[in-house]
């Protein structure tokens, strides 16, 4: 299949955090208008839109886009749990690459404040959820198995929080901007052994948006960042073949994204990965091929994944610092990649970055090892 080059030419976001007085439509509309303004395009230039949202009810995309003056065009509402945003980016990229549209908008938005006591539950009817298998517990089961299989020290997981919160301290958009120590992480409230509160990301409100364009619609003033490839995969029922402590859906999504982009993991300069929980970053980094099996925790502790290290992971602070407005997260990661690849990431800039990767993976129904995982690869 012939395919056209696809660029990000506009980005916008509402910093993730508590926005008690803003509605879902307010949040998404603001991000969408900001992305249009950065691209220098009127709403009428948008030929189609891809919206990601999980909790806002039917037609969230249309309701949001009305606030940005985008009417009448095809709108696809994408819901793939925590991978929804990446799913919307993936679909938008394919639509432009295939020549169906020249200019499209992606908007991810979520309003979570006040909706939950504690963690999110996407399906209250499956047996594991009824028996109390919370999201942190799912990740905790993976952490226990990871440590058992690789002889890892579970306390070392705290180093993921230390790294990402230090990175978040340098990100003006982050929800949490105070670094934490290993002792503070390990001494915080136990949630599901071995995970403590400071190893779990926070629910948040927020939005992020992108304007994507085909090469023929891009001009030099756009400072384009090219979406070189993306991939999507889904989970499988947890069964006798499930390997806890690894993320098969992430591995599948990564394989597809690398193939589409024609690059290999060793070429990646930086990555934003799904650190909803500390062990999530470890499993993801290995699934993405950025560290070998059983090596990611050592890589974190050794500084390989810190700013200035071999391949900085979550130099923007990750979900652990930025919060996790589920439908917005994957789009927000691409906004961060664009800032890095344009060399505009300020204190958190990864020097000489030319190839970057974003990754999400969504769980929520405990009978599956995940709902979906998405990977996007961008470059300049």
């Amino acid at each position, binding site marked *: 299949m012939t395919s056209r080059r696809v660029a990000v030419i506009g980005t916008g976001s509402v910093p993730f955090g508590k926005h008690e007085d803003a509605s879902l439509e307010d949040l998404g509309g603001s991000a969408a208008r900001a992305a249009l303004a950065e691209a220098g395009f009127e709403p009428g230039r948008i030929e189609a839109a891809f919206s990601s949202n999980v909790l806002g009810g039917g037609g969230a995309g249309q309701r949001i886009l009305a606030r940005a003056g985008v009417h009448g065009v095809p709108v696809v509402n994408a819901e793939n749990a925590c991978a929804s945003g990446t799913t919307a980016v993936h679909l938008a990229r394919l639509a432009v690459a295939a020549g169906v549209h020249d200019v499209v908008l992606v908007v991810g938005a979520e309003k979570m404040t006040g909706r939950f006591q*504690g963690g999110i539950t996407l399906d209250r009817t499956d*047996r*594991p959820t009824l*028996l109390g298998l919370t999201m942190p517990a799912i990740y905790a089961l993976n952490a226990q*198995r990871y440590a058992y299989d690789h002889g890892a020290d579970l306390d070392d997981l705290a180093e993921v929080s230390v790294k990402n919160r230090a990175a978040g301290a340098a990100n003006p958009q982050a929800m949490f901007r105070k670094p934490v120590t290993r002792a503070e992480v390990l001494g915080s409230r136990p949630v599901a052994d071995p995970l403590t509160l400071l190893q779990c990301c926070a629910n948040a409100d927020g939005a992020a948006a992108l304007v994507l364009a085909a090469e023929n619609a891009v001009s030099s003033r756009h400072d384009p960042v090219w979406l070189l490839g993306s991939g999507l995969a889904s989970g499988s029922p947890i*069964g006798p073949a499930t390997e806890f402590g690894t993320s098969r859906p992430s591995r599948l999504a990564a394989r597809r994204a690398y193939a589409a982009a024609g690059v290999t993991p060793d070429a990646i300069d930086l990555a934003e990965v799904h650190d909803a929980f500390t062990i999530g970053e470890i499993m993801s980094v290995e699934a993405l091929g950025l560290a070998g099996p059983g090596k990611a925790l050592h890589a974190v502790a050794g500084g390989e994944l810190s700013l200035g290290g071999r391949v900085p992971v979550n130099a923007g602070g990750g979900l652990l610092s930025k919060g996790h407005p589920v439908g917005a997260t994957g789009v927000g990661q691409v906004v961060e990649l664009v800032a890095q690849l344009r060399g505009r990431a300020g204190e958190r800039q990864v020097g000489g970055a030319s190839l970057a990767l974003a990754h999400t993976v969504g769980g929520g129904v405990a009978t599956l090892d995940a709902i979906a995982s998405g990977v996007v690869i961008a470059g300049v």
Partner: protein
Amino acid sequence: MSTPETASALPAARRCACCDAAFPLPEGPDRCPYCGDDRLGEVTLAETGEVVSSTVVRVAPPGADVPYTLAYADFAPGARLFARVRGGAAPIGTPVRLVAAPEPDHYIFEVEEHHP
């Protein structure tokens, strides 16, 4: 928490002729939950299985008493089951017995008292 005295009998188990996975009803009454095949034969699961992974949950949704232990455990031939654990922590490798329990548990794991 469930007690064996009030529990119904252990749910009958099935084994898939296509993928060899085994599972107790009601997890997949008509079709294999892993591959969707409907060629299911009756099978008897081993009374004792081995913990694949477990965690002690200390923060739970409103209404649930904490802490509680959750585990996945493997039972021959080819069943990986999820349940609450009675008897405290159950580290990976711990032998557990499958014990019937009322809904929504259907069954729980009981830590074997004398394990190596």
